[in-house]
C-alpha cells in the first residue's frame, strides 16, 4: 500500500529536530500571520502549523517517547489514510512555498518549511504529487531541464549572447576556475544574464566555463521532495564540475538551486565536494571588494530589492545583495521587513511550476504588493529567476507598472567598460 510507504518515509524523517518541533508546538497559530497564503485567503487550513499535521500524527502514533503507553489505552491519533494524504497534497504543495517566514514568528522557532519538505517526501513515496511537478521531474531527468533546455538549446542561446556582446562564452573548458550553471528560467527568458556574466568576468579576469553535462541549476527533486531525483540532478552538476576540474561552482540567481547545491547537495551525495559552492552575489561582492570590477555611474531610479527566501532567509546571503545594490543604485530603498523577514513572491518551492496553484499564488502576492506599495519603487530588483518570473506575472496580473530586474544584469550594466 502506498499509504504505508508514506508513513514509513514520514517515520524515518522524524529525527531529533522534527520530534522536538512536534513536541514544542503549542498550537498558538501565530504562524498563520506570517503566511501569505493564509493572510490573503483567510483559510485556516493554510496555517503553517497545520501543514505539519501529517508528521504530527505519525509522530504521536508511532514514534513519540511514551507513545507506547498512550497507544495501549487508545490515546494516539488515527493512522493516516489515502484521503488524508490527498487533502494535505493541496496544503503541502499548493499553499506552501517553503519560504520559512513562519519560523521567524514562531515562539518555539520551529522550522515549519523544513517540516513541509519532510512531509512532501512522504507524499512522493505515496505518489500523491501534483501532476505538473511529476512531469517537470520527468523532463528534468530526460532532457536535462524541466523546461526542456537541452545542451543544444543552451549552445544556441550562448552563441547568440556571444554574438550580441562580442565576448566569447567558454563552454566545456577544462581547468577553468569557475563553473557557471543557470536556471532554466534564465536560459529561456532572462538569457541576457549570460552576457552580463561574461562582461563582468572578463573585466574581473575570472576564468570560467559553462558545461553541457551539468548546466541546469534548478532541482525539481528538492522542490517536490524526491531525494532520488534531487540526488541525480545534483550529481550532474557535481559530475560536470569534477570532470572540468573547476575550483568553484557558481550558484546562479535561483533560490532553491543554492539550497540544493550548497546545503543539501553534499548530504544527498553523501560526500563533500572537491570544489566549493559560491553564490553569484557572494562572488560579485567579493570581486568588488577586491577591486576587480569597476563601476561607472549609478541607476537613479527608486529601486528596491526583493529578497529571494532561499538565498537570504534560508541561505544566509543577506548583506551581499545590499552592498551590490548600493554600488549600482543611487536611490536604493528597503522595504519594510526586508532581509530575513521578507515576504515571498508567492511562487517558490515548486508552486510556480504547479499550474493548479496559479490562482492561489496570485492571491498570495497581495502580501508582497502591500510591501511594495509602501515604498513605491520605480523598479524591483531581485536575484532569483523564479522570483523574477513570478513577480512579473503577478505584477502584470495586478496591473501594476514596475519592471523586475536581475541584480547580476544590473551590475553588468554599470560596468566601467573603458577599463
Amino acid at each position: 500500500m502506498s499509504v504505508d510507504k508514506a508513513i514509513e518515509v514520514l517515520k524515518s524523517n522524524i529525527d531529533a529536530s522534527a520530534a522536538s518541533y512536534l513536541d514544542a508546538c503549542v498550537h498558538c497559530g501565530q504562524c498563520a500571520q506570517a503566511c501569505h497564503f493564509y493572510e490573503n485567503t483567510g483559510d485556516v487550513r493554510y496555517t503553517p502549523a497545520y501543514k505539519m499535521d501529517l508528521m504530527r500524527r505519525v509522530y504521536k502514533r508511532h514514534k513519540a517517547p511514551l507513545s507506547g503507553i498512550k497507544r495501549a489505552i487508545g490515546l494516539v491519533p488515527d493512522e493516516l489514510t489515502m484521503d488524508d494524504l490527498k487533502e494535505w497534497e493541496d496544503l503541502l504543495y499548493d499553499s506552501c512555498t517553503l519560504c520559512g517566514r513562519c519560523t521567524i514568528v514562531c515562539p518555539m522557532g520551529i522550522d515549519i518549511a523544513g517540516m513541509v519538505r519532510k512531509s512532501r517526501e512522504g507524499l512522493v513515496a505515496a505518489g500523491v504529487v501534483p501532476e505538473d511537478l511529476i512531469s517537470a521531474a520527468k523532463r528534468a531527468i530526460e532532457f536535462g531541464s524541466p523546461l526542456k533546455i537541452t545542451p543544444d538549446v543552451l549552445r544556441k542561446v550562448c552563441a547568440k549572447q556571444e554574438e550580441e556582446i562580442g565576448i566569447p562564452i567558454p563552454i566545456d573548458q577544462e581547468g577553468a576556475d569557475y563553473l557557471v550553471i543557470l536556471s532554466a528560467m534564465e536560459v529561456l527568458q532572462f538569457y541576457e544574464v549570460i552576457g552580463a556574466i561574461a562582461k563582468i568576468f572578463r573585466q574581473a579576469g575570472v576564468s570560467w566555463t559553462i558545461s553541457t553535462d551539468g548546466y541546469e541549476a534548478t532541482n525539481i527533486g528538492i522542490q517536490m521532495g524526491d531525494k532520488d531525483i534531487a540526488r541525480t540532478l545534483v550529481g550532474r552538476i557535481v559530475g560536470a564540475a569534477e570532470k572540468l576540474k573547476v575550483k568553484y561552482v557558481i550558484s546562479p540567481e535561483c533560490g532553491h538551486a543554492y539550497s540544493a547545491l550548497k546545503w543539501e547537495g553534499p548530504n544527498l551525495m553523501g560526500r563533500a565536494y572537491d570544489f566549493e559552492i559560491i553564490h553569484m552575489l557572494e562572488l560579485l561582492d567579493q570581486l568588488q571588494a577586491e577591486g576587480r570590477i569597476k563601476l561607472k555611474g549609478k541607476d537613479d531610479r527608486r529601486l528596491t530589492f526583493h529578497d529571494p527566501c532561499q538565498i537570504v532567509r534560508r541561505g544566509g546571503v543577506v548583506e551581499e545583495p545590499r552592498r551590490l545594490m548600493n554600488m549600482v543604485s543611487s536611490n536604493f530603498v528597503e522595504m519594510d521587513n526586508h532581509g530575513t523577514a521578507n515576504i515571498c513572491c508567492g511562487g517558490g518551492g515548486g508552486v510556480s511550476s504547479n499550474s493548479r496553484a496559479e490562482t492561489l499564488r496570485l492571491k498570495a502576492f497581495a502580501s508582497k504588493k502591500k510591501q511594495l506599495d509602501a515604498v513605491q519603487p520605480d523598479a524591483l530588483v531581485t536575484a532569483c529567476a523564479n522570483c523574477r518570473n513570478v513577480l512579473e506575472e503577478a505584477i502584470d496580473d495586478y496591473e501594476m507598472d514596475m519592471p523586475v530586474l536581475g541584480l547580476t544584469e544590473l551590475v553588468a550594466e554599470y560596468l566601467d567598460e573603458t577599463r
Partner: protein
Amino acid sequence: MKRIVFHRLFGVLCLTIMLGMGVMSGVAYAQQSGAVPGNTTGSVNDSEFWRSIRQGGQGLVSIPNKTAGIMIQSEGEEWRSLRNGPLSTYGGYLLALSLGAIVVFFLVRGRIKITGGRTGRAVPRFSQPERWIHWFVASLFILLGLSGLLLMFGRYVIQPIIGKSAWSAVASASLQGHNLLGPMFVVALLIMLGVYMKDNIWQKGDLTWALKGGFLSKGHPPSWKYNLGEKSWYWLLFFAGLAISTSGLLLDFPWLVERVQQLQLAHLVHAGAAVVLIAASLGHIYLGTIGVEGALDGMTYGYVDEKWAEEHHGWWAEEAMKTRGDVIEGAGETMPPEKAPAE
C-alpha cells in the same frame, strides 16, 4: 502563625474595648453584687451603659480600625435578615423562574434553526477584540457567578448535605476565589461595555422588532446588529454590572468605607444585582448556544453564515454584506458548505 497574630489582635481588641468602656463610664469601679453602680454624679448607670452599646455606641479603641469600637451594630441585624430572608428567597425564585422560562421556551419553540440550512458564505460579525473581551468577561462571570451563588445559597443547599465544617471550607474557598477574581472582572467589564456600546444604542426600528414579537415570533423580524432583546441585555449589564463592580470593590477592599453599614448596603446591592444578572445571563447563554443554530459561530469564528445573518439581523446583514471584504479571517473563501464550522 496567622492564628497567633489573630489571637493576639483579638486580645488587644478586648482589652482596649474594656478600657474604652471604662472611659465611657467615666470612672473605674469595682462592681458590687446588687449595688447600682455609678453612684457618682455624671456617671452612667448599668442599663444606660448597656443600652448605649446595644444601640451601636462607639467606644474608643487603639487599633486603626475605629469601627471596631462598636460592639453591637444593630443595623447589621436588618442586613442579616434581609440577606437571609427576602433576598435569598426571591433571588432563588428569580433564578428558578428564569430557568423554567428557558425550558418552556425550548419545549414550545425548540431550537431555532437556519431555514433551508447554511449557505457556506460567511459574514463577519464580531471582531477579534470583541470576541476576546466577551469571552474574558464571560469566563470570569461564570467563575464569579458560581462562587457567588455558592456563597449566597450554599448554606441552604450545600451545608445540609455536607455538614457545617465541610461547608465552611467550601465557603472559604468560594470567598477567596471570588475576591481574587473580582477586580479582574471589574476592569474587563468596563472595557467590554466600552467596546460594545456603539451598536447597543437605541436605533430606529428596535421597537418594531419588539412589537413584531421579538424572538417569540416565528417570522424573524429584522433588526440591526443587536435586536432590542440583546440591547436590553447590554444595558442591564451596564447598570447592574457597574453596581456589582462598585459594591464588589468596596467589599473586596473594606478599608475604603468608613462604616460597616456601607458594606452591608454594598452587599445587598451586590447580591441583588448579581442574582438579576445571573438570571438574565441564563437566557443569554441559552440563546447564544443551543437556542439558536448558528449564533455561536459569531462569537467563536467571528463570522456567521449569510443565511443566519439575513434571518436574525436583516438590516445589519444588508450593510455587513455590502462592506464585506474579499478575505474574511478564518473563513476560506472557497469553503464548501459541508466544511463550514459545525455546531
